[in-house]
């Protein structure tokens, strides 16, 4: 950890673990804001955009992806030791991501079913969010993250205030936008009521149900909602709704696990 004088721009890194790079791309997608950001932050590590490499130390480190290998587990501890403010970005980093569904599965059997030579695969049995390994200072949810939330986070860090990241439901943003509720008016399963806002209610605005890529909201009442969704659906259908990009988040883990186990049992049968 180095002290930073007032005149220096904060040193920012963007790194990834097990993930698809989509969240990092959100930074590049800021387009109009990119030059102003580069004028105010010293982007010392961002393999997605630049071949210049650095090993920190970082004032701010944006970490994408989950911990899926032993190397990554060591790397994230090392990154933490060189970072003042560690921010996890995206569903993989904050809840484990789609790859964390394997956590509920019989991992050796699953590995053998996918790879012809499973002995060459050296991944961990689980894919886990960064916060299960090191202390995280802030998180941006989503698959991918929302550009306006990323900009708000950078602005807040620069100004020195708390970022304004809503903990409300997707429904609240959806109703503000004037959308018609797809669940109530059409019976389309939508996880908006238990999902944290931030996406601008993107899917319901296009007539689709929310699949909770921003993860469970504070105090999500999953047992009640799961029970309601199960009333006129086939057994297991409601479980599968939760087995998505944030299925390993603690609030969703129980139905998501049931869904994965049911799929394995069906495969075995």
């Amino acid at each position, binding site marked *: 950890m180095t002290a930073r004088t007032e005149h220096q721009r904060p040193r920012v890194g963007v790194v990834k673990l097990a993930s698809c790079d989509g969240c990092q791309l959100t930074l590049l997608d800021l387009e109009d*804001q990119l030059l*102003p*950001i580069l004028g*105010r932050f010293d982007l010392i590590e961002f393999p997605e955009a630049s071949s210049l490499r650095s090993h920190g130390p970082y004032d701010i480190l944006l970490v994408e992806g989950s911990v899926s290998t032993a190397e990554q587990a060591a790397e994230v501890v090392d990154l933490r030791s060189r970072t003042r403010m560690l921010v996890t970005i995206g569903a993989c980093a904050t809840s484990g991501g789609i790859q964390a569904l394997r956590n509920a599965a019989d991992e050796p059997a699953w590995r053998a079913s996918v790879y012809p030579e499973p002995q060459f695969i050296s991944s961990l049995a689980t894919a886990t969010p960064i916060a299960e390994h090191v202390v995280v200072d802030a998180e941006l949810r989503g698959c991918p993250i929302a550009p306006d939330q990323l*900009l*708000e986070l*950078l*602005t807040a860090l*620069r*100004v*020195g*205030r*708390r970022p*304004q990241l*809503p*903990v*409300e*439901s997707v*429904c*609240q943003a959806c*109703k*503000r*936008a*004037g*959308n*018609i*509720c*797809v*669940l*109530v*008016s*059409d*019976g389309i399963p939508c996880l*908006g*009521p*238990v999902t944290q806002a931030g996406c601008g209610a993107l899917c319901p605005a296009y*007539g689709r149900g929310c699949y909770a890529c921003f993860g469970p*909201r*504070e*105090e*999500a*009442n999953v*047992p*009640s*909602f799961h029970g*309601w969704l199960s009333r006129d659906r086939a057994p297991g259908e409601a479980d599968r709704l939760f087995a998505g990009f944030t299925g390993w988040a603690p609030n969703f883990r129980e139905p998501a696990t049931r869904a994965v186990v049911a799929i394995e049992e069906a495969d075995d049968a």
Partner: protein
Amino acid sequence: MVTERFLPRADLDRLIAALAESGRTVIGPVVRDGAVAYAPIAAAADLPVGWTDVQAPGSYRLQRGGDRMFDIGPPAQGLKRYTFPSRSPLTVAERDADGGVRFTPAIPDPPRLAFLGVRACEIAGLLVQDRVLAEGPFVDEDYRARRDAALVVAVQCTRAGSTCFCASMGTGPEVTGGHDIVLTELDDGYVAASGSVEGDRILARLGLEAATAAQQADSAAGVASARTAQGRAVATEGLRDRLMDQLDSPRWAEIADRCLACSNCTMVCPTCFCTSVGMESDLDGATTKLERTWDSCFTGDFARVAGGNFRPRRQDRYRQWLTHKFATWVDQFGTSGCVGCGRCITWCPVGIDVREELSIIAPPYEAAPLTELPVIAGSPGAYVPATIRSVTPETADTSTLVIEPPDDALLATRPGQFVMVEQPGFPPLPISVSRVRDGALWLTIRAAGPATAAAIALPPGAQLGLRGPLGRGWPIERAVGRDVVIVAGGIGLAPVRPLIDAVLRDRRSFGRLVLAYGARTPADRLYVEELGAWPKLDLEVLEIVDRAGPDWLGRVGIVTQLLDQRDWRDRAASAFVVGPERMMQATVATLAAGGIPAERTFVSLERHMECGIGLCGHCQMGPFFICRDGPVFAVSELGDLFGREGI
């Protein structure tokens, strides 16, 4: 006697054209995405011709039926989005290179609208929001401008859905006011009557025949059938008190097992008005746009303050919503907050039915009297730039800013009142005024978070935005001729200092004066020099700290220990108490034991405040908005709300 005319079905387009004249946009019900919603229309063909809806708890389905144009229930969302938009700008705050600030408040620019097909419950919703937002004590100018600019063409219901209960709430199905024109749909046209001069003018220009007796009878019969067809009723007699008697009902926890706290009920409610101030700033925080957005008492951040959340549990939030809607709304606005439209039932993702919950929670009782409040103009964006004269550290994390406002309005701040402080780049903060002296406001601010830390880091000469004075201060007049006991905990010494200044200025009007001050440690004591000087002015100062170091020769313990040997039973005394809520509860109990009654014990409460003028709803506690009705209350006013958790 209102003249009833007949508008043939084919002439509805002539009415729409007449409404659209003079540049109005006509807003009516249309079919969109599987439901009926309000949207701009150009002709009668845009209306939901031949559609009807089936609404039930947690379910809405359109279906084909008949060929009428208005055979539908309440649309998915009400007209609120036109009269009280989900997002609207408040002001733009900018800081220049010299540290000055500039505010550019949004100027209301209402669209000229004509609402067509408005149901009785919908009009009732508008009238309830008029009471809340446009009839004082503070007025939302954007709302009032939008309401003034809109025409209302009502259509009385001739059918009712299973979630409708306007008849119970006394708001429909008959349209009895708040309209410019009212229609009742028959198979071949509409019975029409005007409700305003503008409505008269429009109907006169259409040159309609008078309605026949048969048409009038059909119209009345249709509306009567909408009354009898309503589903489950709500027993409203004495409902306010019945509900407030049930704050400890086990049903709240049972509802919370089902409730998702997702806010849908509040978003679709035509009367819910709670908002938050959102902000968006540029990367340097130099320019900040403040905007008002719909918020909800179900959201986790809604009642959160630096020290925690006043309503941490779902059951607290559901109880807040239901008791506000059906009980404390009556105390605040002289009307129920529910109009019986049933939207909260239909659009609840898990089908919670307020009618059922009310019937289980509540038994009959008398209604409470109402209070009239004056009308004061105000806006949550009306900040004025004020210049910092000096910044004086008080403790390691607390400083006093002496600030010169641009005019005398803020200097009229009374002891116990507060101001909203806005710095570009940060959300607004409610701050108690700790002194008014020499043309300046003194604000003692503890760095509890980034915004407060930034405020006390500003240099002399820099500017801040101020709005106020706000709230009800200490009722010093209630203590004249009596002993005065002032009890402060921690930073609570700041809001009582103007009270101390006032009683010392007029020392001979009071009996014995006692200040009991408790701080966490000796280093956390505010105004150390004054604590030493006040005894010379005949103010007895008692001090105690939670934890002491070797240098502290005074008492160690809690503030009630300073008072528990005192007896005021033979002396008329008034007490003023401010500090953490638990400290205030313990202090009030100690003072009561010493003979100071709840009527003469005043406390200053803290809540999450966003607007400061009772329009955003964050600081509600029972029948009160803390910002507007308080923050100072007599303990007797609060009754058993004082000290209750989750309220």
